[in-house]
């Protein structure tokens, strides 16, 4: 799939936004400003952006614990996301969801999910809506290597195939389900599993934006044309712990430093587009500067935001009761 310069700049900006967002959340969390749990997506940016560059407003995604990147890639408002993570009234969910439940259904983002494996069945439903109402939309479930072991995920594979749904399963295999290695916890292979359900599947370098972009392009085409579900298995790496505060003692010595140095998807994207003469380094530097300012602004606004009023405790449980 060929992207024009505008699209390349947009993709870079999105990845950079995710990285800057996550780095800053890491800092702010350490400083004690953010309550609860956060699970950061830094290092995995190519996957969310590579997939979502193929999607439009008809399409839905469901995310994981590690959802900030998917939200940004699907177009959620960064200021409102930051405010949400700070538990503020101005947050995308009014401060009621927090990091693990950021959602914006208007943007087709059906929620980060606190339940591992929670998303794939929901995505079958979103795909069923698209199919029934003939919207032409597709639905994408992002799932980690941990979530890939849940029965719900495999039930979703089976149902998506039985109903021939426009669904796409993107397994983001960052090597660790919490602290447990996927090369131990995942029996067989992701591709073998997909094959078992008769679902076309491809394994890609999950840190190669262009590889993800192409794989997702094929899957989206298949789904939109009535060809049913697909699976993409991307191998990638996270730079922070399972959650913030995880000392990552289970990882190898110097593993993360080495990954950041050699495999960073943003660095690889930069290298590739500048070497090919598609974009100038200065253009990308300008984006870096703009994104840094945007994130700084988002944090300032979030910190200055209001806490939800006590009355909000009791609202939004039902449409009517």
């Amino acid at each position: 799939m060929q992207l024009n310069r505008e699209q390349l700049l947009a993709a870079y900006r999105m990845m950079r936004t995710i990285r800057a967002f996550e780095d800053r959340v890491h800092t702010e969390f350490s400083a004690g400003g953010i309550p609860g749990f956060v699970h950061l997506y830094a290092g995995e940016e190519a996957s969310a952006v590579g997939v979502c560059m193929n999607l439009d407003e008809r399409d839905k995604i469901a995310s994981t614990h590690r959802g900030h990147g998917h939200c940004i890639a699907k177009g959620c408002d960064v200021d409102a996301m930051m405010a949400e993570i700070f538990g503020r009234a101005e947050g995308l969910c009014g401060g009621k969801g927090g990091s693990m439940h950021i959602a914006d259904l208007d943007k087709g983002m059906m929620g980060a999910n606190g339940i591992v494996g929670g998303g794939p069945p929901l995505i079958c439903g979103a795909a069923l809506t698209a199919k029934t109402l003939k919207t032409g939309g597709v639905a994408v479930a992002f799932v980690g290597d941990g979530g890939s072991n849940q029965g719900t995920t495999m039930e979703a594979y089976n149902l998506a195939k039985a109903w021939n749904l426009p669904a796409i399963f993107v397994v983001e295999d960052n090597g660790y389900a919490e602290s447990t290695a996927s090369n131990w916890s995942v029996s067989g292979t992701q591709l073998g599993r997909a094959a078992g359900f008769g679902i076309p599947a491809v394994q890609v370098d999950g840190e190669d934006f262009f590889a993800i972009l192409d794989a997702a392009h094929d899957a989206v085409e298949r789904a939109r044309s009535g060809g049913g579900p697909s699976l993409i298995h991307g191998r990638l790496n996270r730079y922070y712990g399972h959650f913030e505060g995880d000392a990552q003692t289970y990882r190898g010595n110097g593993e993360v430093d080495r990954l950041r140095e050699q495999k960073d998807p943003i660095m690889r994207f930069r290298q590739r587009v500048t070497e090919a003469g598609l974009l100038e380094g200065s253009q990308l530097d300008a984006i870096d500067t703009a994104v840094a300012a945007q994130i700084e602004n988002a944090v300032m606004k979030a910190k200055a935001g209001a806490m939800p009023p006590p009355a909000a405790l009791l609202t939004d449980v039902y449409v009517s009761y």
Partner: protein
Amino acid sequence: MAKKSFRQAINEALAQEMRRDPRVILMGEDVAGGQGAPGEDDAWGGPLGVTKGLMPEFGRERILDTPITESGFIGAAIGAAATGLRPVAELMFVDFMGVCFDQIFNQAAKFRYMFGGKAVTPVVIRTMFGAGFRAASQHSQCLYPIFTHIPGLKVAIPSSAYEAKGLLIQAIRDDDPVIFFEHKMLYDDTDDVPDEPYTIPFGEANLTREGGDVTIVALGRMVKVANEAADALARQRVACTVIDPRTTSPMDFDTILESVEETGRLVVVDEAHPRCNMAADISARVAQDAFKALKAPIRMVTPPHVPVPFSPALEDAYIPSAARVIEAVRAVTA
């Protein structure tokens, strides 16, 4: 007005709502039946024939047979509801909540709150419940207290064919997730059921008997049992009010409290296991808010704290009977 069975009332409600709104779909295991099989299509219409005939009218695009995959299709119904359909999913027996509950209580129930009021999840989960079918421990439970416990869910428990049609149409038109409990021993009960579509609002109790001596609260099939008891007691000059809350979430505590203020005596009949059930919930609320009106301790008529047994001899002893209700009323009026 025609006499219709509870089964027909539900079938008619589904058909009328599907005709009215193309976004209404039905899914579940064997809701049509025979998919992909060499024999008859629409072979079952659900295990007890409740949805028979819908597939020929609405087609397989809107009447979806599913694999036996409760997490998968209950989750799909919820995801479809959050994205623009109004699915009715059939969880064949409520006992099967054990293999799909996450999708109901962590996903459907919480979307709206977690997402700051922006999600609307108009899903209905129809499910069979209750003892008396000789179906043993894993196909006979009530379990509605568990769903009632979860904020974000609504829980409807019709006690007659009239109630079933009106409450189901309300459930389908409702914008919140609704768990719709169908007692399998009521399917052949008949009642006057209007041909036209109608809705019964949630959160308004129905009074099936009126009397000033004792308030009896009962749900689902137990409403019949309570009525039977109340009629027998009326012949012995004890006048009972029988209250059918219709929905346990929302729950019409006001009607119960008002009645207890009048009668001063409360008997709650609940087919659910006794611990943390609706009887306990209602009794606690009355004890808190109408303590001064009470002239006798509240009595709860429930099964014992055991799984539902198989043998008819044991199951009959398990299910609360009119005789036990009468005994409880006698105790509070003694």
